[in-house]
């Protein structure tokens, strides 16, 4: 007894999720029917599923489809989803080698990966706070488990546990925020919320503030903004490098998609109220992220702080809150995703079963032992540091342009200075790789073709977007027009 409003077309927006989800199911079943010791190309399956998702997303571009009234495949959502799927694809590419090396259960891994993608895409396209919340939970749960995918390592489980506990904690606040929103506006649909708030934006209503504050907490946690960032270093360090790469990009992208939708669309009328708070958070995030990163001697942990800082830069774009800002966020997300994936991919490829080899000293003289990987990693680090001619620079430039054009000179200055500090710790890695003698510990590990290829592709993309960013910039600019 489906209502008349249902027809085939109305599923369109959900197709990408269906692809990914179906892929997840297939992998799961394949795994469950797998005989012991039998090898299955599960990675290939996952890759195909994600590729299909990507294709379906491309079909949705510019269509502005809506399904069930709660899923809108507008360009914004599609753009972010594409970033997410890209992250997924790279992760799969890197995983193939890492999994068997570290003895990680492939079936569960890929299943969770795909489901996580489903959740992220759901967040990116959600037009309803509840759906947003469910998507967030799907994503989170999957990622929690992936963090602890190495059951045998205490670090992994501990990271997973911290991530989970704080995540649940934060999502409770988030939910509470939803509750108040619902209370005020009588609905969870973002469009209705938006129109309702716009109608009575003038009247002082503490409950709205309450709702905003709690929602901010929820999102800020997911994008690991100060002071809700504490989980990040531990989770990133505990998780296998591939997973870290995935969650540091996919989760951020999805969370920011939600952030933008809720605050730049629904709560836009109350900008004057949330902008100052977010400004402070952004500044704190940039500063803490970079400054504490300086003191890190562990590469993954260092990159965790760097990703915190990058969250800060993205927040700057959010605070700027003008057309530039929105587009900047999208572009930055894309660039950051590729760069970070490359970095973590390199780390993952260099690890070994016994030790993750992510101590700073494990990279001593890497340039001598494996020049190509070192070179690629270097490019990724430079891009993270925002040095031209890499995408990292363009992204930063875009964000700060937005900030300046909104008059936030202070944020821009803090941003650029903190980026200088961040360059310092990226350079420490470079120093290790190039300017110190090989440490006896690191025996060269074979690097598989797939991973290396993916790395090369990522680096190529870094340069391409760094030198000819126009296309992507235009796409980003085109995507933000459509957030109702």
């Amino acid at each position, binding site marked *: 007894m489906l209502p008349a409003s249902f027809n085939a077309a109305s599923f369109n927006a959900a197709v990408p999720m269906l692809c990914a989800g179906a892929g997840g199911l297939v992998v799961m079943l394949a795994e469950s029917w797998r005989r012991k010791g039998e090898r299955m190309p599960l990675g290939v399956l996952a890759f195909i599923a994600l590729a299909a998702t990507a294709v379906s997303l491309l079909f949705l571009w510019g269509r502005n489809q809506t399904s069930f009234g709660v899923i809108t495949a507008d360009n914004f959502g599609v753009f972010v989803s594409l970033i997410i799927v890209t992250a997924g694809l790279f992760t799969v590419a890197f995983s193939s080698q890492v999994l068997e090396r570290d003895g990680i259960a492939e079936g569960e891994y890929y299943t969770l990966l795909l489901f996580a993608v489903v959740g992220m895409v759901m967040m990116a396209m959600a037009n309803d706070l509840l759906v947003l919340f469910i998507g967030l939970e799907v994503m989170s749960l999957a990622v929690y488990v992936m963090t602890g995918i190495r059951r045998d390592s205490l670090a992994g489980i501990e990271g997973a546990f911290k991530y989970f506990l*704080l995540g649940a*904690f934060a999502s409770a606040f988030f939910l509470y925020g939803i509750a108040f929103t619902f209370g005020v506006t009588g609905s969870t649909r973002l469009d209705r919320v938006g129109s309702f708030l716009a109608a009575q934006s003038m009247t002082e209503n*503490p409950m709205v*503030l309450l709702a905003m*504050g*709690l929602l901010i907490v929820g999102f800020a946690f997911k994008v690991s903004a100060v*002071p809700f960032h*504490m989980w990040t*270093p531990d989770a990133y360090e505990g998780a296998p490098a591939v997973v870290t790469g995935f969650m540091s990009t996919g989760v951020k992208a999805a969370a920011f998609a939600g952030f933008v939708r809720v605050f730049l669309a629904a709560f836009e009328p109350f900008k004057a109220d949330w902008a100052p708070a977010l400004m402070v958070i952004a500044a704190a995030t940039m500063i803490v992220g970079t400054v504490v990163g300086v003191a890190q001697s562990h590469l993954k942990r260092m990159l965790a702080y760097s990703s915190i800082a990058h969250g800060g830069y993205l927040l700057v774009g959010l605070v700027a809150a003008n057309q530039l800002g929105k587009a900047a966020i999208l572009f930055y997300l894309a660039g950051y995703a590729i760069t970070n994936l490359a970095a973590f991919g390199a780390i993952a490829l260099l690890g070994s079963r016994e030790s993750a080899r992510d101590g700073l000293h494990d990279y001593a003289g890497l340039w001598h032992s494996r020049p190509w990987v070192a070179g690629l990693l270097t490019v990724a680090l430079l891009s993270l540091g925002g040095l031209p001619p890499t995408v990292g620079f363009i992204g930063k430039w875009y964000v700060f342009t937005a900030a300046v054009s909104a008059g936030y000179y202070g944020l821009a200055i803090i941003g650029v200075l903190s980026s200088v500090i961040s360059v310092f710790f990226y350079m420490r890695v470079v120093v290790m790789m190039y300017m110190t003698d090989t440490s006896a510990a690191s025996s060269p590990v074979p690097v598989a073709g797939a991973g290396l290829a993916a790395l090369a592709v990522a680096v190529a993309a870094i340069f391409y977007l760094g030198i000819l960013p126009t296309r992507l910039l235009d796409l980003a600019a085109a995507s933000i027009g459509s957030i109702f």
Partner: protein
Amino acid sequence: MLALIPLLPFAGFLVNATMGKRLPKTVSGGLASLAMLGSFAISVMMVMELAGLAPDARAITEPLYTWFTAGDFELKAALRLDPLSAVMILVITGIGSLIHIYSTAYMHDERDSEFARYFSYLNLFAAFMLTLVLGSSVLVMFVGWEGVGLCSYLLIGFWYQKKSASDAGKKAFIVNRIGDYAFILGALLLATSFGTLEFDGLAAAIAPLPVEHSFGMLSMAALLLFIGATGKSAQIPLYVWLPDAMEGPTPVSALIHAATMVTAGVYMIGRNAVLFTHAPEVLQIIAVVGAATALLAGTIGLVQNDIKRVLAYSTVSQLGYMFLAMGVGAYGAGIFHLYTHAFFKALLFLGSGAVIHALAGEQDIRNMGGLRKHLPITYWTFLVGALAIAGVPGLAGFFSKDEILFETFASGHTVLWVVGAITSLLTATYMFRLVFLTFHGERRHDAPAAPAAHASAHGGHAVDVHADTHAGGHGHGGHGLHDAPAAMAVALVLLAVGSVAAGYIGRPAPLGGSNWLGTWLAPVFEAPVVEIPEATGEFAPPPGSEPEHVEDHAGAADHAAGHDADHEALELTLMGVSSGIAFLGIGFAAFVWLRRRDLADSAARSLAPVHRTLLKKYYVDEIYDAVIVRPIHAFSRDGLWRMDTGIVDGAVNGVASIVAHCATALRRLQTGSVRAYAGSVLVGVVLLLGYYFWR
């Protein structure tokens, strides 16, 4: 054509510098000498041509190319020959050639490469010196000005293994630099105010201006230029480098530090006569400084025991004379003295060189004596030189020095005249002290002594280089001292002739002369031709106006003939006085150092403090060292450098370390306890909501 004059020696320099070490001595030395002789010949030709021109139009300018242009400021590289520079180039090339020839013998014991290096420097020096005097603008002059400084640096430090030598070279260059600093400032002042640095242009621009009776821009420029001159020409306070410069080979001292380079300052003032004429106060300063220097150096020279140092101080003293002349506006007289001085001072140096050469590097006159019979040529020529510088009538020095004194007196600077007179007394005295101690009396010398002995005697000069080469070279036994070889003798004799005759071209009226030189030079010191008409146009020009000054300052020398009788009488009396002084000095010297040598010693003993002060040159070097050099060095090392690494750089690294400390501090917050993390989340929430409700 003019360009060839400096270019020939320059070519010689190039040849010797590039392939010199592969050439035998005869070739490289001969080449250098030929270059000099060639440019001497050309100079003579050019001067002839110049002389052919009308007195007012006596100037040959040869533009080469535009050196540099910046905005409205353009600077041409051009050479300019006028009576003044004519005199200079003749002196430089002429005496220069002689000294080159002399050197071929003097430096004969050097290795081929060193020999070539020596001559390349010498040629380079000549080239720069000629550029200096021929330059038509302040900057072109400055090129030569610094260039000769460089060459003197190289030549003083020629025996670079000797620390004293290289130190002396460095000292010379740096002290000169201090002068150049002022010089450049003056040049800039002129350039910015008149938009040109061409001598003509400047003179033409300055001439119409009123004479500055109060200290103004012109005076400033003049003063700065003069300070530059004190550096180059070893006047108070920058004279300290010259005595040390005697570390160089003796011919170098003769050429650079007696005849030519050190007179550049005098030349420069003469060159800018119009400017200086407009700054009477500066002229006063110049006169006083000159006189003071003359006296000071004379007193020091009285007690020095190093033959070359005595000559060096006498040079400083004579330069003082020249500046005195310039200061009283007797430019002609100054240049005249410059010209004569070149002859006899070069002669004296070369003579001393011959002595040193003969004595295997011995320079301490206390170890000489009785050389008269061993070195007759040297002796006689040296004697001529001494007589000339002492101002014995009939010799070159007499005329020029006498003219200076006369001009000083005539221009009313009685005090300065007295100083000058005393100085000339001193001059005569110490010169003949030198003569007697060196050539007369009994031998106090056992040649060739071991280098060590000489080193103990005096800071170890050319000794080591010479002594051993002599031992191997032509070993002359204990008493077999040999007189100057041919090449040296020629130079000595020619210079001696010059020292006798040179004065006569400036013979003043009272002695039946016409002061031809003064007449020749006169136009140079006046305002350029264009200004002349209204300058002499009316009979009684208003007092203080420019042409009048030209009259009584520059003009006096040449129109002396046409003046009234008592003027002549005065001049004659003064001549008498000065010649009297000369003989007095000589007599005194003879009495003390020939008859009663014990008197000198007893005097030295009774006046020990004075004697020591004089011996130590009034401790000026020590004072400079203590007051300027050391403090600056200490300040830089212990003050600035510390500050640089400590404070300036410390600030930079401080920022870094602050960040690092914050990092470690914040890092400790990451306790690893999930409850603490939850706490921070909760705190965040509370703060956020708090912000909303209590803002």
